[in-house]
């Protein structure tokens, strides 16, 4: 029983981080209809930014953290202005491939700048694990979860109440009418990319803090696809729920199935779940099926 609870607890902790990253992904998709295959690389670059500020430049943790957010926002901004702006109205395949190309560029650049050596953050949080009954959660997981949840709440509030958030929702809902209401739709695209990049960078930072950083850290980004398919590509609440589900499924599969199934079940399980869901509901669990017109 305690084993089960521990798996669930760890699943929730990791799931919170997935939720945050998926939220960034969904923000971008909602506002611009672009699915960002470079999410993982945005995470990785965010983690390296933190490493640069804190370890290479020796800044304290909090300013480094703020600089990471600024740097990622700038990255999102640059990417949107330089590349994605030109892709409006292009077919799906082009939009998918342009973000895949982008991920390759970022991966290569990271290797050129920071080399492919394994790097670690200095300890940021108290070492002692969190213990509840017989459930043990590693401190980095716990604090990562706390930060991720805080960020999710801030993003959700921003999206719901702040002027820019309302404008973004309007844009997501109907670009044309948002435009005619005086919302600068293009600015909204840029804002969405910056916010998406920040969310991903925070996620990358937390994951880097747990397992160290390498250019291939972005591979974790693949797990975002099961998350967003579970939650529906355009639902923020769905992304959060999907994050937790995937985190828990992953840990349960890793905990119970690894004796019976060879290899890395933990990584495989979310994709098996994804396939099962798509078989039953081809538009995802919460995705909406549109009425087609002729």
């Amino acid at each position, binding site marked *: 029983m305690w084993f089960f609870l521990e798996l669930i607890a760890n699943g929730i902790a990791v799931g919170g981080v997935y939720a945050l990253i998926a939220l960034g992904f969904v923000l971008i998709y909602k506002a611009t209809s672009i699915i960002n295959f470079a999410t993982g690389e945005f995470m990785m670059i965010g983690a390296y930014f933190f490493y640069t500020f804190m370890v290479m430049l020796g800044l304290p943790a909090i300013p480094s953290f703020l600089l990471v957010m600024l740097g990622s926002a700038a990255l999102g901004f640059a990417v949107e202005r330089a590349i994605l702006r030109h892709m409006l109205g292009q077919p799906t395949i082009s939009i998918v491939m342009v973000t*895949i190309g982008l991920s390759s560029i970022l991966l290569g*650049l990271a290797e050129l700048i920071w080399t492919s050596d394994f790097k670690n953050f200095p300890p940021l949080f108290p070492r002692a694990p969190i213990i509840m009954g017989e459930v043990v959660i590693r401190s980095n997981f716990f604090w990562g979860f706390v930060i991720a949840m805080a960020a999710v709440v801030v993003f959700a509030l921003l999206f719901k109440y702040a002027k820019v958030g309302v404008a973004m929702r309007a844009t997501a809902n109907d670009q044309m009418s948002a435009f005619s209401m005086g919302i600068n739709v293009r600015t909204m695209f840029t804002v969405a990319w910056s916010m998406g990049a920040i969310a991903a960078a925070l996620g990358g930072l937390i994951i880097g803090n747990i397992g160290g950083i390498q250019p291939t850290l972005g591979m974790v980004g693949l797990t975002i696809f099961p998350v967003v398919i579970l939650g529906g590509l355009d639902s923020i609440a769905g992304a959060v729920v999907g994050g937790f589900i995937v985190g828990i499924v992953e840990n349960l599969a890793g905990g119970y199935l690894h004796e019976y199934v060879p290899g890395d079940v933990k990584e495989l399980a979310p994709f098996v779940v994804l396939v099962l869901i798509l078989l039953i509901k081809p538009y995802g669990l919460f995705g909406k099926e549109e009425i087609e017109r002729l």
Partner: protein
Amino acid sequence: MRIGDYKVSYGADEAVFRTGTVRVWMIVLFLAMAVFPFWAGDYLLYMANLTGIAIVAAVGLNILTGAAGQISLGHAAFVGIGAYTSAILITKLGLPFIICLPLSGLSAALFGVIVGAPSMRMKGLYLCIATLAAQVIFEYLFKNWESLTGGIRGINVPAPTIFGFEFNNEFRFYFITVPVVIIVVTAARNLFRTRVGRAFIAIRDRDFSAQLMGINLFRYKLYAFALSSFLAGVAGCLWVNFIKIVTPEHFPLHESIRYLAMIIVGGLGSVLGSIFGAIFMTIIPEVLKSMLNIVSAFSPDAMAYLSPLQTVVFGLLIVVFLVFEPHGLAEMWRRVKDYFRLWPFEH
């Protein structure tokens, strides 16, 4: 110069090579391909074989993704299925290469249909993500179904023999690769002259109205999946018989992306584009390598940057083509041809 585009029958107008000039150039090309192996060294022949195999796979993907508009992030997995099928048939059943070649294609096509059939109800991004899942799951199976695939150690395969003749080096294998490429390219080009090819494009452009035009969406999407994975399987069989070993790390997601990059850079939906793209994406990393080789004369550790540079350039190529030349090399080629059509008498 290529003017005089005058025809007296519909047949002449429907021909693939429509003018005498084009036919002459085709003969020159075939002659060059026949002479090439006698002139080229092992390295060039090695590259030529790899390029030919990539062309077969890229033509397959271009039928599914470029023409029929169904995005697949799992093409490498189907190449892998072909490679493993071939390796297993050869080592466990001792079947000859010439029988393994179509069987590998059929086996990949079967899996293509298994993945494709339930994907019929999905569209665009959802399909794209479903094929991503297929890629991840097949990769897992390659690695972990040890009794069948040999796990990470993989399977070793002997050099193929046809009628007692052993194709055991780059030079000899060239004479397997090239005919297969020619057959595949011709067949694909033919397909787009008939209702099947037209139906694919109709599905890509507007799948609802395609249905009202009498096209059975399910059947034709399935055709596209089957054909695309068949060609992937054939490419996989060629590949394993050329390299002589198959291991799971040969078919990662990145390889699927590389095939997508080929058809984007070459030209979506164009058979010629698949050829250009496969050649281009195979040559560029090598060009980069030789450039770094020159640089390393001045700064000795330049070669250390090869792999990340290749990654960056690979990404840049995709992005630059999508932004500036979305119809790829095939379109650039058409413009060059148009320019020379009346040259030097364009005025």
